[in-house]
């Protein structure tokens, strides 16, 4: 068996509140193998998104280690973590986070342009076509529906051909039919590209399609 693409050991994160420190994550441990899909479920506010941010290197833990593609994130600088994200990871946000001034094609091409990849437009169109948005390439986010916006975000995440994809409740803002279509796309792309995936959701049916399902309870994965 090949080495895990993601390893988390003893992760802890707490926030300062008016009533004192609030521990959200306590001693979280996780391993994700290449091509494997992992779902993290749990009640609202239990810290799923916070955990995903730590695993993707978007935030810093107060204790513990995250090892992504063989590199310990806690030992890297912010810019080195950014470089690692650009080469190894993709991220799909619950709120899509597309840039309003850019067309769908430009949003997808953005990371490719940023890191000097060849033929960014061509690749962007390829991914959008694959997700059924060929006719929407020149449309701005405000001209797209929620489902379409999320598919653009998905295309952007896969455009860099990541080793691991992080998805933060990608269907939370979508209706049932659109969400189902979106999930189909997500798993189809994950399987075809061979990327690992960490998916945060509270939808049991979505979670059940993953290889492993963990529940975050009282700051620990079970």
């Amino acid at each position, binding site marked *: 068996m090949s080495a895990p693409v993601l390893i988390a050991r003893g992760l802890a994160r707490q926030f300062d509140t008016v009533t004192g420190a609030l521990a959200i994550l306590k001693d979280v441990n996780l391993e994700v193998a290449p091509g494997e899909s992992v779902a993290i479920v749990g009640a609202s506010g239990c810290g799923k998104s916070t955990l995903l*941010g730590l695993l*993707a290197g*978007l*935030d*810093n833990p107060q204790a513990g280690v995250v090892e992504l593609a063989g590199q310990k994130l806690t030992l890297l600088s*912010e*810019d080195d973590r*950014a*470089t*690692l*994200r*650009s*080469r190894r*990871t993709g*991220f799909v*946000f619950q709120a899509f*986070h597309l*840039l309003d*001034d*850019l067309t769908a094609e*430009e949003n997808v091409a*953005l*990371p490719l*342009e*940023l*890191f*000097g990849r060849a033929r960014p437009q061509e690749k962007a169109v390829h991914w959008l076509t694959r997700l059924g948005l060929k006719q929407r390439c020149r449309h701005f986010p*405000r001209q797209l529906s929620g489902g379409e916006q999320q598919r653009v975000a998905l295309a*952007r995440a896969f455009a*860099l051909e990541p080793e691991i994809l992080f998805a933060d409740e990608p269907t939370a803002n979508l209706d049932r039919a659109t969400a189902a279509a979106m999930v189909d796309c997500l798993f189809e792309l994950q399987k075809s590209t061979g990327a690992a995936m960490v998916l945060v959701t509270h939808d049991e049916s979505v979670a059940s399609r993953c290889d492993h399902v963990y529940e975050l309870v009282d700051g620990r994965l079970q």
Partner: protein
Amino acid sequence: MNSRHPIMQSLILAKCIGSRLARQRALVLLAVCVTIGSATTAALGFLAEDIQRALDRDIAHFLGAPLVIQSDHPVDPALFGTHSTTAHAHTASFTVGATGPGHYHSVALKAVSEGYPVVGQVLILAGGNNRVPATIPERGAAWLDRRAMDSLGAETGDFIQIGRASFRVAAELAFEPDRLTQLQHTLPRVLIGMQDLPAVGLDLDNGRGDFRHLIAGSDAALAAIEAAVAELDIEVLKPNSGQHPFSRISQRVSRFLGMVSVMVLLLCGSACAVLGRFVVQRYATPAALLRCMGVGRHALTLALTWQLGLLALVSSLVGALAGWAAQPVFARLLEPHLTLELAPPDLSIVVLAAGFSLLMLAAFVFPRLHALAKVPPAAALTGSFAIRPRIAGTVLAATICGGLLLWLLSDNAQLTGILGSAVIIVVTAAWILGWLIGTLAGQTYRFTHGWLRIALRSLGRSAGRQAVPMATIALAVMTFLSTTMLRDGLLDTYHEQRFVHDGNYLFNGLPGDAMQRFREFLADRDLDLRGLYPTVRARLTAINDIPFEEALDRESDTREEARSPVRLSYADATPANNTLHEGHWPASGSGSVSVDAEVMSDMGLEIGDTLTFAVGDVQLRATISSRRGYIGGGSSFMFWFMFAPDALEDLPQEYLGGFHLAGDSRSTLATLSAAFPNVVVTELEQHLSRVRVMMSAISRTMNALIGLLLLAATMVLAATAVVAADDKRRTGGLLRAIGASTGQVRRMWLVERAMVGFASALIGVLGAHVVAELVFRYQFGMSYAMDWLNYMIIPLAFGSAFALLEHIFSNRSLRRTPLQALQHA
């Protein structure tokens, strides 16, 4: 809640969401902008009133009578008849050298007749600091003001020498009703009786004195005298004539203050426009939520209006209070050249200041609030909406109200027109340039790669949004630069008063027939004569045979200056410190004159025009043969009109020039003063120190005003930076989340902001150039030349500074982790 009266409902709402407002950084900035605008309006309003009052007081004192007949030679009162007047006195004033126990110094000597003063009382100090009324000094006595006593090292009881006469210092002069204003006249003052004047030995007919008849009487009597004097071509001064130099000083000061206050208001208004849009946008979500909860549209609009209205009221009152509190500071800055008597707060100025803040909000914030209430709650909650106030109506209303306010403040339609036009030009140029940059960036990004490609594309796509900050920044640069240029220009006019000459003493008033004796006097004492210039006192009476007052624009400053006698000079060829721009040097027997280039420009003269001068009873007519400039600017003696020697040699002449005197000068100067009573000697250092003190006071005041502008300009930049930082927080977080380094994000922003800063500043510099050119020419009657280097250096510097400011502001969001940045956005 719906059962309550809408006004009550809105008040409760205003109270409920008030605490949320206080936490908004943009709202705090908005309050600060309103406060600064209000404080500036109030401070400058109070200051303008104080200055006007002080100048009015000095003008009244300067005249000292309802009617004053002024001449540069003694005028027999029988010529205009004073039999029907109720009071009459005459005075004669000269600038002379005086020697005291301590020093030699130039002083303003005034001899006064019986009956002086016609208006007010002369006050002298008696028994310490008691001011007591007095009439005129007794024979052989002189009254000196404190500055004269200090300058000459004299105290009461000492003797001073003026010309050939010696005077006992009988008292300290505390108040002189018709003294020259402190702003212009800085010489120490000496008052003697008219009966002592002949003993001084001055030549009264050489045109160097100022002879006045102070007259009071019935209106009919004064009108009759005025009519009689008009036929004699003698000047008549009245408090309301508006022709004396102090009216011009007063006008210039109030124009400058008006202009600065208009510019500060302009900047504060711009900052309010930027912030108002941002603040209202921030209201959208809470407003939508409240409407979902059942709050009526009108109640909501009213609630937000209450809050912003209260904010405007409090800010403007704080501003007005601050403006009033700043009065003593300005008074202190202007001392000792203008003594301000601070008045109690004028309610109309406070109302004006409060009106300003309400106007700013009415123009820039309230229409957006009204438009916000029309946005459907669902659209506001999903963010798919745009607040579109009725821009045309708002702009029209703001233009009308703003124009009225500017007119009220500046009391000057021309200035308002110049500034208004400049603002329209700059704003239009910003829109056009913003569009051009957007188009250019939108087309060229395809040829670039990486972060530069993203930065250019972002700039191209957001061109519409860049126009407002660009216009705002351009206005800030324009107002700041043009005011600074005007300040420098006004100060330069004082610099031009410098005489940098080889000698350390300057002299004037040497009669032509005493020139040889004066040379010998200096040679006997080993004094080195460094310059000697023949002059003839004359009056310019006509241009191309048209009386000069008709030939020149009534508002022309040159017209006012040409009313006074001018010094004509002559030379065989172009003097060493002169250069001919056009034409040839006046040839002997040609009846031609060479004229200063600036004077020709001011008076609209051309080569070939004819000028007519009056030298006593002699009429001198000459054709302009050349246009002449000076090498080294105002660093030497300069003459407006220069002739060939034969044109002037038969006319009464006097000389001026300079000499060098080393070591102890007191006894030499006292001897010189006794031998040549008409010659006034000025120590160069004394002259320069007077100019320096005056420049320093004016410079301090102008710097304080520029400081207000700088504060307002900083608010504009802070406003644009706050709005931009909010917009960038999300973009930066996202770019970093997908792998961009902080360096890449920072470079993108730097390029974007540097381009916006450079372009805005370039428009601002061009706008400042236009404003300075127009204001100098039409408001201050001065010529203006811009340093072209500014066109490049200032925009570059400003672009860099703006990018640096952006860097500082963006650093905070870049210090957050990408997740925090996204959550915060």
